[in-house]
């Protein structure tokens, strides 16, 4: 008797059209597309906010806005970029690519996937609504504490803080839903023959990300809930006057906040090596070393949180512990850099747009990492803390390391997703404009920080004017150059040269065995990995 296993479970057999397709869809590619579209829209919203911030900083003195509104822009810009732009972009790729890469027809829990996405738009509304309400005289605007919610400012703040707390709860629930789905999918739905150590690096990056989210989201949820009860229910978790401890909030927030950096970066560290090997036409160097390094970084990321507030005051042994443990992250990260460079070494390299972004990403993210080492030094941090040096550092990590990495992924997978090639020339122009404008925006901010310019203040001493002018002009160039990115994506979705199934000559992986675009149901016949 012969037995044939045909395919995996499918939650959906038909696919509705029109608006219902998008509202009710449980298809991983539809949900991935929604995440990516939402991310792009919020990236533009968050970007528009920062142009307001930079316009204010073009000249010393208060030019365009009140300090309160400036601080609201700072806080909401950060929250939007982190939670509504970068995280959904990574989740969008996960939805699109993980089932394709592991040979599954869909995510393990498709309805959960749909719910996870539809929590995001309400959270974005909650974050931005207080701006509109303030125009009608309701409340005093959005959250003005920065994205860190530090008490006592957040306990005393207006309704914007409450809106942000509920937004964070929704975002947290969405993240946990996504994490559960990814963990279950990766462990339970891999194609026969695909052992864990044969998983694509992107899947590894996301698996560790999902573990980090599971470990840290409850801490953030608990912290903002305690903040809410301090604000409205008479508790004193973070009120020194009532016996509480405001520094406790900083511990709670950064226990989530530092791994959050890696939550944003690990998926990118997953697909960048895949891009490098594709355009170097060589096998990925040090697969196992990279997997172990990702795990090491993930593990270290949850034990180093207090380096974000060295200056808040803590015992010397604690300072030393957090300094050395933070510096220890550079070891596995150095292994990753070595593997990325060795993958390219003596390869038959070509520099299509995804490769340009990937190589540029290595250099710029490297600067972000190295300046992080400077800040990890307790003695040096005392000078640089809360200065523009920190602003420049985390933009090298999160814009270059996060967003430019995501852009590399977009150009790499867009032909597979849409079935059309994007405009290569426009892509390259976009890369060079982004790379040059980004450096011109943030290199001056390193110097401003070293010279002592504090962050989160709309005014500054006159000696900082020139660097701020350069930074502002470049920020506008950086912002407007992203319109090329949007235009290129839209034109690619609408049409263009037909993409082949493999798209890139050196592409490796199961996703490239499917048609471009892939069929509505991925892998109707289960692939086997040798």
């Amino acid at each position, binding site marked *: 008797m012969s037995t*044939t*296993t045909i395919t*995996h479970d499918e939650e959906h057999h038909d696919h509705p059209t029109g608006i219902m397709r998008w509202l009710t869809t449980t298809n991983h590619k539809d949900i991935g597309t929604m995440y990516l579209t939402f991310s792009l829209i919020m990236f533009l919203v968050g970007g528009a906010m920062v142009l307001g911030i930079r316009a204010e900083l073009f000249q010393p003195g208060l030019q365009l806005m009140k300090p309160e509104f400036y601080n609201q822009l700072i806080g909401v810009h950060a929250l939007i970029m982190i939670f509504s732009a970068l995280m959904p972009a990574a989740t969008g790729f996960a939805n699109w690519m993980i089932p394709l890469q592991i040979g599954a027809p869909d995510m393990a829990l498709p309805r959960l996937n749909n719910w996870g996405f539809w929590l995001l738009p309400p959270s974005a509304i909650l974050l931005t609504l207080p701006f509109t309400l303030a125009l009608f005289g309701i409340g005093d605007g959005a959250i003005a504490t920065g994205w860190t919610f530090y008490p006592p400012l957040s306990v005393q703040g207006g309704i914007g803080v409450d809106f942000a707390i509920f937004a964070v709860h929704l975002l947290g629930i969405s993240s946990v839903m996504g994490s559960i*789905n990814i963990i279950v999918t990766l*462990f*339970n739905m891999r194609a026969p023959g695909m052992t864990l150590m044969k998983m694509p690096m992107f899947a590894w990056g996301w698996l560790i990300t999902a573990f980090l989210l599971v470990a*840290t989201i409850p801490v953030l949820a608990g912290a903002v809930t*305690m903040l809410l009860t301090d604000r409205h229910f008479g508790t004193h978790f973070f009120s020194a006057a009532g016996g509480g401890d405001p520094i406790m909030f900083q511990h709670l927030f950064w226990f989530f906040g530092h791994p959050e950096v890696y939550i944003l970066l690990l998926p990118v560290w997953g697909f960048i090596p895949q891009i490098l090997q594709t355009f170097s036409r060589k096998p990925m160097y040090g697969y196992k070393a990279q997997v172990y390094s990702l795990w090491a970084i993930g593990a270290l990321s949850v034990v180093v949180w207090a380096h974000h507030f060295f200056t808040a005051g803590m015992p010397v042994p604690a300072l030393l512990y957090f300094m050395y443990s933070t510096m220890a992250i550079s070891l596995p990260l150095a292994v990753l850099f070595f593997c990325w460079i060795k993958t390219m070494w003596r390869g038959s390299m070509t520099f299509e747009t995804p490769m340009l972004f990937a190589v540029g990403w290595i250099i710029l993210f490297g600067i972000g990492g190295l300046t992080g080492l400077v800040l990890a030094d307790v003695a040096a941090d005392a000078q640089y803390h809360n200065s523009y040096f920190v602003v420049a550092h985390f933009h090298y990590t999160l814009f270059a390391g996060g967003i430019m990495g995501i852009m590399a992924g977009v150009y790499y997978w867009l032909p597979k997703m849409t079935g059309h090639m994007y405009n290569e020339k426009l892509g390259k122009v976009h890369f060079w404009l982004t790379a040059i404008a980004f450096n011109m925006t943030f290199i001056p901010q390193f110097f401003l920080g070293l010279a002592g310019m504090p962050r989160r203040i709309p005014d500054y001493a006159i000696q900082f004017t020139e660097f701020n002018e350069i930074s502002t002009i470049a920020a506008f160039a950086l912002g407007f150059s992203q319109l090329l990115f949007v235009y290129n994506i839209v034109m690619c979705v609408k049409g263009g040269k037909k993409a082949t199934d493999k798209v890139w000559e050196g592409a490796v992986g199961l996703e490239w065995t499917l048609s471009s675009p892939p069929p509505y149901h991925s892998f109707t016949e289960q692939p086997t990995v040798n």
Partner: protein
Amino acid sequence: MAILITDFKITVMPNNSLSVKNTIRLVMGLAVMSMLVGIGFALAGAWMVLPFAGLEIVAIAYAFYIIHLHSADFESITILDDDVIIETNGYKYSSVEKFQRYWARVSVRKQADGKEALFIGSHGKEVEFGRRFINDEQRILLASQLKQKLNKSY
């Protein structure tokens, strides 16, 4: 050369790459990780972290439980010398239908919701096959294969 198919079976079922034992290990591992964090912060005074950690673990365990409940689901068609046996097995139901092979007919019909459905039956009685695990394309392909198998034997 005559071809005589004496027995033939098609089984459709989900692929489960994680064993029950490893599922338990994984959920326990996640629970320990989350609880360590929750209890640690609770001891430091931030007890509100703990209920969120607990809720999260319940959600994770439930997700794996749902997957486990469906892990043994399958549908199968067995073609014997004289019979065609359709088996359906889910965690809430299971059924076995038997048809005379000579009289068994295979058909694919479009349903009101637009999807195709594959039916096997005879004498006015029909069973739908592959409703849960396969898509339209596969149903049509499977139907033609089944028709061939049923016809070739006589």
